[in-house]
């Protein structure tokens, strides 16, 4: 499954936070390698270091020690500006709480990364429109977040993540605020992106959600406890809808 150069390669990274006099070891000697197009669920109880790992892999944070190669490039010691550029060009983020700009239309939200990429207004517009159509929100481009359901908001967030044509999408509990049926819809969307070759890193504590990925990494006490591959369950929106309908009927 692994290709010649993995998209993500971390070697012996650790992260130490200093809280007063106490040193907190959030990550201890983690090594991990993600191939292009893989979908990986990172699981583990809170405090296991999965969020820290996600922040580092998402270039929001730097490891205290160890090497991190993203697309073959050493990024662990880059400065804030270089990391910002990397997040803009190579990465897309999806968050549990959607993190859309309030009082801003879906289209403008999706255009945001392109703004920082320095694209012209016309090109931003065209690409944002396409991204929204791709997540099935072509009709709601001018809606504001407060006029949309949670699922729709998360779709906008996914559109925002993929509008820059990233190689990696990092999703932090993307279904945490959604009901099970909508969760399946979002996972179906992710699987579609995965098939299109985008690597997916998903942090979740829900085993149901992890089933839709091709690989599950379980963290514990800052270390990788288990790392196994699995045939992903195909997210079937129709089945999920039927199941929801069945549960809803008396």
């Amino acid at each position: 499954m692994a290709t010649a150069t993995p998209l993500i390669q971390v070697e012996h990274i650790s992260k130490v936070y200093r809280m007063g006099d106490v040193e907190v070891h959030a990550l201890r000697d983690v090594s991990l390698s993600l191939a292009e197009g893989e979908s990986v669920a990172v699981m583990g109880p809170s405090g296991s270091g999965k969020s820290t790992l996600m922040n580092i892999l998402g270039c929001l944070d730097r490891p205290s020690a160890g090497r991190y190669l993203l697309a073959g490039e050493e990024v662990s010691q880059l400065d804030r500006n270089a990391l910002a550029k990397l997040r803009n060009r190579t990465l897309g983020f999806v968050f549990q709480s959607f993190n859309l700009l309030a009082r801003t239309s879906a289209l403008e939200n999706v255009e945001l990364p392109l703004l920082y990429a320095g694209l012209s207004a016309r090109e931003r517009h065209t690409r944002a429109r396409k991204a929204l159509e791709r997540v099935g929100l072509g009709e709601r481009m001018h809606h504001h977040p407060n006029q949309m359901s949670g699922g729709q908001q998360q779709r906008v967030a996914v559109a925002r993540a993929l509008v820059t044509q990233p190689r990696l999408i990092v999703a932090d509990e993307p279904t945490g605020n959604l009901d099970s049926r909508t969760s399946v819809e979002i996972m179906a969307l992710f699987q579609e992106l995965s098939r299109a070759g985008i690597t997916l890193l998903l942090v979740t504590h829900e085993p149901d959600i992890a089933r839709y990925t091709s690989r599950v990494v379980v963290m514990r006490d800052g270390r990788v406890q288990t790392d196994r591959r699995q045939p992903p369950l195909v997210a079937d929106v129709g089945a999920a809808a039927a199941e929801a309908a069945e549960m809803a009927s008396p």
Partner: protein
Amino acid sequence: MNPLQVFRVAIRALLRNKMRSFLTTLGVIIGVSAVIAMVAIGEGAKARVAEAFASMGSNILIVLSGSTTSGGARGGFGSMPTLTWDDLKAIRSDASAVRYATPQLRANASVISEDQNWGTGVNGISPDYFLIRDWPVSSGTTINPSDVEGGAKVVLLGQTVVDKLYGSSADPVGQTVRIKMVPFQVIGVLARKGQSAMGQDYDDGVFIPYTTFSAKIQGGLQKFIAGSIMVGATSSDDTARAEKQITNLLRERHHIAIGGDDDFSIRNLTEMASAQQEGVNTLTTLLASIAAVSLLVGGIGIMNIMLVSVTERTREIGIRMAVGARPRDVMAQFLVEALTLSFFGGLIGVALGLFAANRLASNFGWPILIRPDIIGIAVGFSGLVGVVFGLYPAQKAARLDPIDALRFE
């Protein structure tokens, strides 16, 4: 991001919170409009003072004769005639900085028309007088040199005298008035000049040739001038030079030894005018300084709100950073927001200030004087206020850690 995009993002962010943006910028609006209005008022006052002096006549020097001393009581300037008619001729011909010179003889007398009378100042002057004081007639003709030479019994009436004798709408040209029982023909009415800064009514007076005055009002034309000499310098910058020339000339003519006291005195009205201007300038500066302080307070208001805004929008900053905003993009956004607030506040302030200045000017009956440089300075300064007070909040925003910012509730 290019500057235009930064500006668009800032505008959009500000419009998302219209009420707050307006209230934030209100401090700057008030500050700038106060500066504009205060300076306009000051300038108006200055122009008003200048106007008052201009109506007195520009470039004027008044030469007064010396004082009498009898039994230790000194009578003050003009109490003893020391200026001669030849002095007047010499001043007119020999002092290069002097353009006009006229004797000014004055007496109070009753001016009697057919059915009214009015006690007023009767002035004996030469035609130069009206040139010095820049005072035309509103009807009829002015006194000309041949009237002076011939000692013609002609009179120019001030508008107040016309009002008292004939009523305000009447044109008395061609009528006859009697002054000290001597009939004079009214040849013209002087244009209304209004009041002096001290409340003296310029229009309450009549003017006759000085030769006629000497012959009919005050008795024969003697060697000495029983009054003063009014001098018009070639320009207002030349008044000091004219004063010096006249002093030297008269000292020489009066044979005053070096170190001896002048037996005459020269009053320089231009100096008085500039002293008064100085006072108004000080007042203007004071008013503008107070207004500038309010502009500063407005700037602090912007900083305050921008700081609150940074805290409140921490999550937004986190989102922007997550999708690729560099620290300096965030910094630029907040800086441009502050700048936009203060700059537009400045523009609105200018409009409001001009409006207020107009209203105040029309209330006080002052001329409206808008100084474009002050508008430029006020808007520029308000922009500077935006940068200075926006810098700290913008830096604070740019230094946020994206992870903390995203987690911020």
